[in-house]
């Protein structure tokens, strides 16, 4: 069954706004999604009804707060088909990537080792590892792209051939090109070349849009963020194999993550608490739990089907405009909903400003992927990214705005 977008849209308060008498057309969900009232209510409920701290409280209110927080974890684990003991809450996906960089990569890689990554990574999945490489002297290798913006697996094979690669960091879906990367296949290739190598996937742009099974992907780490999947800002998660987390040392330390503390030192709490120092984001965990419940009710297969249909229609609408070119694959089997495009003779900033003046929200700039921009020979792109609350009614304002930009700025 297709999604009834006009009805669904009513659950998103921001989308009812008008700007200068124009309907808000929100096409920037790859940067941050909107929030349904069910998520707002879940967070509100915590602050109005169950407000207290989690863990160690022996009074009922504290037990409620703990249930809300741990309930968020259980729901997210179920949503991603993972063991809840392997779900560590972080502030966002960036922190999840840093956890991997600090607690595993920096303690295991050194001179003579190599890690593999790609030229299309978001800075969140790039900087923590090149920073570690600078300090520790291991080599970072990058898979380049094919003509249509997919990872070149022949290049990957060559980069793996010497068996020195001990770690792979790869995004599941590109936030710029929309490319869906074959992460399960890459994980197999990496382990064939080196059985002990670990695989870290940045799932930021995948978890909101695709059915994701951490077990089926068979990777070691998977990072997500709440605010791109209908949840609040301020919460993300690192999903990992529990036995791997058990073997790792903590990233951040302090309260709640300890078992015992003496003047001389400490022992660590069980996973996942070992990686959650200090009072956590309780309302946000409740909100994220409500968000994944909401998505589960809608059905992730339907979410993906909606994305495929709408993205194909958007690509067709965009490429029908004279002077507009799309960056990235056009085959829907290997792409998600983020569409970066160029308008001949008009700078992305000017495209974005014109669209903004018509109530159409798109993102312009380098999208935190400067290495990718350099590979593509670009300084910036304009990017339209849809979600479940968008439909074909949003295409006309997008196309009209781009055509207006073309005539307004034509030299």
């Amino acid at each position, binding site marked *: 069954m297709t999604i009834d977008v006009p009805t669904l849209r009513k659950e998103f308060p921001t989308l009812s706004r008008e700007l200068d008498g124009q309907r808000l057309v929100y096409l920037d969900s790859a940067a941050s999604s909107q929030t349904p009232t069910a998520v707002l209510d879940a967070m509100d409920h915590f602050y109005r009804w169950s407000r207290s701290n989690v863990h160690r409280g022996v009074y009922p209110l504290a037990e409620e707060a703990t249930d809300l927080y741990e309930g968020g974890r259980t729901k997210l684990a179920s949503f991603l088909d993972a063991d809840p003991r392997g779900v560590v809450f972080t502030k966002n996906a960036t922190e999840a990537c840093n956890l991997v960089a600090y607690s595993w990569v920096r303690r295991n890689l050194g001179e003579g080792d190599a890690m593999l990554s790609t030229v299309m990574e978001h800075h969140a999945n790039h900087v923590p590892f090149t920073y570690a490489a600078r300090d520790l002297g291991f080599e970072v290798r990058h898979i380049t792209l094919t003509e249509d913006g997919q990872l070149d697996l022949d290049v990957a094979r060559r980069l793996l051939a010497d068996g020195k690669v001990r770690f792979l960091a790869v995004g599941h879906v590109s936030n710029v090109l929309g490319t869906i990367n074959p992460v399960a296949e890459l994980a197999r290739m990496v382990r064939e070349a080196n059985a002990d190598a670990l695989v870290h996937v940045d799932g930021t742009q995948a978890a909101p849009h695709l059915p994701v099974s951490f077990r089926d992907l068979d990777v070691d780490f998977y990072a997500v963020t709440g605010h791109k999947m209908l949840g609040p800002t301020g919460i993300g998660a690192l999903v990992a194999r529990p036995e791997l987390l058990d073997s790792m040392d903590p990233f951040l330390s302090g309260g709640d993550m300890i078992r015992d503390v003496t003047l001389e030192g400490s022992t660590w709490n069980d996973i996942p608490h070992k990686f959650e120092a200090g009072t956590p984001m309780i309302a946000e965990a409740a909100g994220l739990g409500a968000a994944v419940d909401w998505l589960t009710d809608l059905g992730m297969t339907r979410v993906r089907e909606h994305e495929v249909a709408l993205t194909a229609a958007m690509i067709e609408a965009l490429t029908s405009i004279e002077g507009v070119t799309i960056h990235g694959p056009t085959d829907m089997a290997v792409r998600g909903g983020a569409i970066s495009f160029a308008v001949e003779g008009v*700078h*992305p*900033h000017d495209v974005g400003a014109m669209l*903004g003046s018509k109530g159409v929200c798109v993102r312009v*700039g380098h999208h935190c992927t*400067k290495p990718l921009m350099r590979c593509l020979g670009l*300084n*910036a792109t304009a990017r339209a990214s849809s979600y479940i609350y968008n439909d074909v009614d949003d295409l006309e304002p997008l196309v009209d705005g781009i055509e207006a930009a073309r005539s307004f*700025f034509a*030299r």
Partner: protein
Amino acid sequence: MMEDLYQEIILDHYRKPHNRAPSLVDEDVHVHHSNPLCGDEMDLRLRVADDRVDGLVFDGEGCSISQAAASAMTDAVIGREIKDALDLVEDFRRMMHGDDPARPDDLLDGVAFQGVAKFPVRVKCALLGWMAVRDAIQTYERGASAHTVNHEE
């Protein structure tokens, strides 16, 4: 909103920029400025004679605001004594932060950018060329011939 930001004078400079060229005969200074966050890039070349801005050209890639502002800047700055040019740059900079310009007549078409101050994310675009000429003059005063600046957020 579009009319507030993109006045006709600004669009004229964008479509037909003044003093846009990839080289300058007998240049004294070449500076390269970029706004990494929006990807604007600018090369500015300066020739000084008798302590005056004798030749000034810009080249680069960027949004209409950055390109038009640089074009208007060259008109306002060419021929001025370098100290006076720096004073005029400061007047433009203050205007972009919300002040009324003290020398509107000297800014020439530069005054058309006063409305850009209402769009904080675009202020850096308008300032790019002006910051580049200030840097070029200061580089000249230091006795150097080249300088590169990344304008971070």
